[in-house]
């Protein structure tokens, strides 16, 4: 992390905020230096408070943690947005004076460090001097170039004082329903730059004396489509922050300021040690190489973007090398990633250094004591210029999760190899689904109001298979551990979209000895809107998960939308309707219940931009399944029978993939012939051997295709962009394929626009801006 020692005007009011007389920046630098020099947070080689008074230490932790959780539960009842109230997309976090997280609430734990990044930005850029930091202040941030994951996560940050001295900060974040981007909805696409990504607030002072400022209220509310939700979301954040501030103040009175401030440092070192302890208890040291991809299909006619240079098909490339060291710390190195792009899926380092803990608390560190200590036990490397760390201040981030969840899917596999090797089979997870589709859109809703929607049904996708059991069906999303698809009735209140059906999506879980959890689909009919648009957002041409140890990846997504459906007439006439029974896209059924003039789009183009929807039009929200574990031929016969009878798998694929010999009785129930299945599975193993080739022989053929440059443009663009950014990745590629020294692949040779590849301008080039650096770059 950067130590920014020379700031113009730094220390204009030295000692005015901190008891020790240091500026906030000097104080933070001192902590960082002690950490770097000693290897322990703040130089704390001993946890004197914790060791001498463990009950007192735990009492403070419990009080603060319970206060954070309780404040979250109370505050979320203020919100009207189903994203916050139904899905729990909010989080409160307590920080010490340096902006390092002490503890966080339940909820979207990605924000363990995002608001800390904003606090550090204020510290490093001398907010202490201007605009000043005083009791009763409120600051608002959603700037992704400071640390936010995507602009719809709006943060309210409140400083906490005691006897006139700053003793910490509390931050609250809610995922708002709209930020006034070009595309309606909180994670929209269509825009390709920051300048279309919605309202951008850079740690702005938005309140004094515990009161939001009127200019802020007027300005912010008219810059979004959904002010009603925006207003209540802000009240939610402020109420939560103030409740937590009260709890801190009470704690200081009860425990003493010295105990509190000591605790606020030791608990982070304790968190650092906690991760190390868990790594040593759970994993196998060594090197894990993994990779993930996801599609960005922008040449399609249904993707409308404002700039011609964005009309290219590209692929997100996310290789990661995890090194678990002998001292039980670890390093996550994303060398080789592809370049950022002209879309809304770019991320930034804090999305990893903070965001990744929302995943790790579901596996490696399932503890309530997650704080910035874990980050201090982790080395992150996000090469500058890649999608993980853009070197251009124009980048858009609205749906950074499209890339993040895809790339993190591979981390499950790496960790699971450790768990599997040690026998902790119960912890194995083949990966996460790419939790999508994101149903979004806007216009004039059924209340005759300007509106935008983002359906969070996707918070309940299928999970990856375990090494001892199937993944959970329609259960969770990596970014929201609470996992809830929300109530149909609530979504119908929030959206001018009636439910025609909500069903488990057959065949979406990756096959395996244990299959991935299944996703689900909802068929929505537009109803009561005046002017209405919607669009799709998800993976279609590619999978982001892989399956583990012989398991298959989950199914990819596809798009279904229908216009001029004639449904309103069919309803009046009592004719058949599409009600969510469309299990096999090879034999589609929805079309059988539409009028003769229906225009249907059923294809793999799962990213689109705003399209006009009339009342009676249809939109399929297909939420993905999770990947499988182990060879499908090892799946217990009884479990395949259950899959068939529960409509979890199509009979054709049960036969082909699971090798079962099946029959159906007159009641429609499936049975599996055990003896014939055992014989069939033996035969399939022989068929595999017969059709396959030795890997090294195949490599010779693939090498020929590489020499001949035989691959789609998007595949070549992905490699070319990674090669340009990483000599290391290029060198390993050439070495693996035994390519001649003069072999090269340049993006210039592909005949596609490459804006931003060579000419760019970083945020740090703006005057008087000192970005906080959280990782090796």
């Amino acid at each position, binding site marked *: 992390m950067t130590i920014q020692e020379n700031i113009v005007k730094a220390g204009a009011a030295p000692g005015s905020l901190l008891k020790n007389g240091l500026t906030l920046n000097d104080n933070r630098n001192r902590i960082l230096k002690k950490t770097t020099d000693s290897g322990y947070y703040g130089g704390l080689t001993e946890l004197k408070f914790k060791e001498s008074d463990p009950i007192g230490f735990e009492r403070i932790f419990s009080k603060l943690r319970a206060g954070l959780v309780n404040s979250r539960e109370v505050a979320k009842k203020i919100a009207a947005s189903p994203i916050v109230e139904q899905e729990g997309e909010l989080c409160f976090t307590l920080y010490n004076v340096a902006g390092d997280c002490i503890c966080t609430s339940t909820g979207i734990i990605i924000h363990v460090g995002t608001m800390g990044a904003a606090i550090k930005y204020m510290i490093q850029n001398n907010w202490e001097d201007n605009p000043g930091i005083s009791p009763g202040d409120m600051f608002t941030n959603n700037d992704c170039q400071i640390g936010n994951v995507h602009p719809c996560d709006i943060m309210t940050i409140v400083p906490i004082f005691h006897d006139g001295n700053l003793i910490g900060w509390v931050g609250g974040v809610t995922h708002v329903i709209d930020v006034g981007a070009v595309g309606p909805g909180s994670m929209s696409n269509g825009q390709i730059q920051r300048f279309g990504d919605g309202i951008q607030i850079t740690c702005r002072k938005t309140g004094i004396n515990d009161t939001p400022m009127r200019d802020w209220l007027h300005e912010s509310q008219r810059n979004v489509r959904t002010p009603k939700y925006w207003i209540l979301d802000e009240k939610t954040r402020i109420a939560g922050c103030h409740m937590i501030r009260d709890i801190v103040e009470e704690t200081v009175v009860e425990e003493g300021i010295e105990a509190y401030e000591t605790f606020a440092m030791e608990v982070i070192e304790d968190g650092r040690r906690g991760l190390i302890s868990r790594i*040593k*208890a759970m994993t*196998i040291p*060594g090197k*894990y*190489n*993994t*990779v993930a*991809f996801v599609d960005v299909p922008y040449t399609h006619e249904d993707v409308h973007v404002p700039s011609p240079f964005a009309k290219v098909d590209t*692929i997100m*490339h996310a290789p990661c090398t995890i090194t678990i060291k002998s001292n039980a710390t670890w390093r996550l190195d994303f060398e080789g990633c592809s370049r950022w792009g002209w879309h809304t899926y770019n991320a930034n380092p804090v999305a990893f250094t903070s965001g990744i803990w929302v995943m790790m608390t579901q596996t490696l560190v399932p503890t309530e004591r997650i704080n910035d200590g874990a980050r201090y036990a982790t080395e992150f490397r996000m090469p500058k210029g890649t999608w993980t760390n853009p070197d251009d201040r124009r980048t858009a981030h609205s749906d950074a999760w499209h890339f993040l969840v895809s790339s993190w899917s591979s981390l499950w596999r790496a960790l699971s190899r450790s768990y*599997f*090797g*040690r*026998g*902790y089979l*119960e912890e194995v997870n083949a990966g996460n689904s790419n939790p999508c589709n994101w149903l979004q859109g806007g216009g004039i809703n059924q209340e005759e109001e300007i509106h935008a929607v983002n359906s969070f049904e996707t918070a309940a996708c299928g999970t990856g298979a375990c090494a*001892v059991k199937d993944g959970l069906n329609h259960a969770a999303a990596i970014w929201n551990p609470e996992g809830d698809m929300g109530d149909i009735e609530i979504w119908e209140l929030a959206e001018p979209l009636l439910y025609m059906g909500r069903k488990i999506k057959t*065949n979406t879980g990756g*096959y395996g*000895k244990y299959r991935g959890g299944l996703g689900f689909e909802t068929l929505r009919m537009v109803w009561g809107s005046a002017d209405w648009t919607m669009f799709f957002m998800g993976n279609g*041409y*590619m*999978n982001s998960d*892989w*399956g583990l*140890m*012989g398991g*298959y*990846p989950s199914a*990819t997504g*596809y798009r279904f939308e229908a216009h001029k459906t004639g449904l309103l007439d069919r309803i009046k006439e009592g004719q058949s309707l599409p009600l969510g029974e469309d299990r*096999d*896209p*090879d034999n589609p059924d929805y079309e059988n219940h539409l009028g003769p003039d229906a225009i249907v789009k059923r294809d793999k183009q799962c990213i689109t931009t705003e399209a006009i929807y009339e009342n009676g039009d249809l939109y399929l929200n297909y939420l993905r399944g999770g990947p499988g574990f*182990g*060879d499908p*031929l090892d799946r217990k016969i009884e479990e395949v029978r259950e899959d068939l009878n529960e409509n979890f798998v199509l009979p054709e*694929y049960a036969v*082909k*993939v699971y090798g079962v010999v099946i029959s159906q009785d007159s009641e429609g129930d499936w049975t599996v012939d055990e003896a014939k299945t055992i014989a069939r599975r033996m035969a*399939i193993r022989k068929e*595999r*051997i017969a*059709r*396959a*080739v*030795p*890997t090294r022989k*195949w*490599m010779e053929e*693939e090498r020929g295709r*590489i020499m001949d440059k035989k*691959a*789609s443009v*998007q*595949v070549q663009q992905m*490699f070319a962009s990674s090669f340009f950014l990483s000599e290391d990745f290029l060198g390993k590629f050439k070495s*693996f*394929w035994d390519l001649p020294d003069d072999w090269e692949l340049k993006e210039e040779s592909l005949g596609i626009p490459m804006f931003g590849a060579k000419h760019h301008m970083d945020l740090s080039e703006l005057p008087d801006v000192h970005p906080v650096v959280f990782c090796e770059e």
Partner: protein
Amino acid sequence: MSTYTKKQVKDLVDGDLDWDTLHKMLSMPKDIERYSNYVSVLQDQVSWDDKIIIPVGPHLYIVETVKDKELVTKCRCGHGFGDYTLNWKLNALVYIRDSEEKMNQVYPKLMAPDTDWQVYREYYCPTCGTMHDVEVPTPWYPVMHDFEPDIKTFFDWVGLPAPVNA
């Protein structure tokens, strides 16, 4: 710290463990002796005498050979894939699903990747035909060397003597 019997660990391996115990395994601190119990259970399930060091798949293991104490990757059927530091996949059989027709053997047409973007690579044991791994990369992607364990340090962590050639 929880402890579990070898029978419970065997049930875990076989997917037959009762939910209460499984839940306890998930929620309680880990039992450091799990590794010893685990490899003991697995050792009972194979027909050869080489010592299992690290399981890397349901039917794939890094083992220490009885004969000369070499560390190699080995299938449950007995097929050897070579030195454990090398990528076992390079000595496997591979089947590439790189067309719509081949993908359609696994998923309905719209639910499999477009092979202009992504392919499946299925790695089989040349002797028994077990599918040990499925890679899902773009065309051209190097074969992934998934895991390079530091066996010596690992044995130090679990408090056991390391294989002589680790």
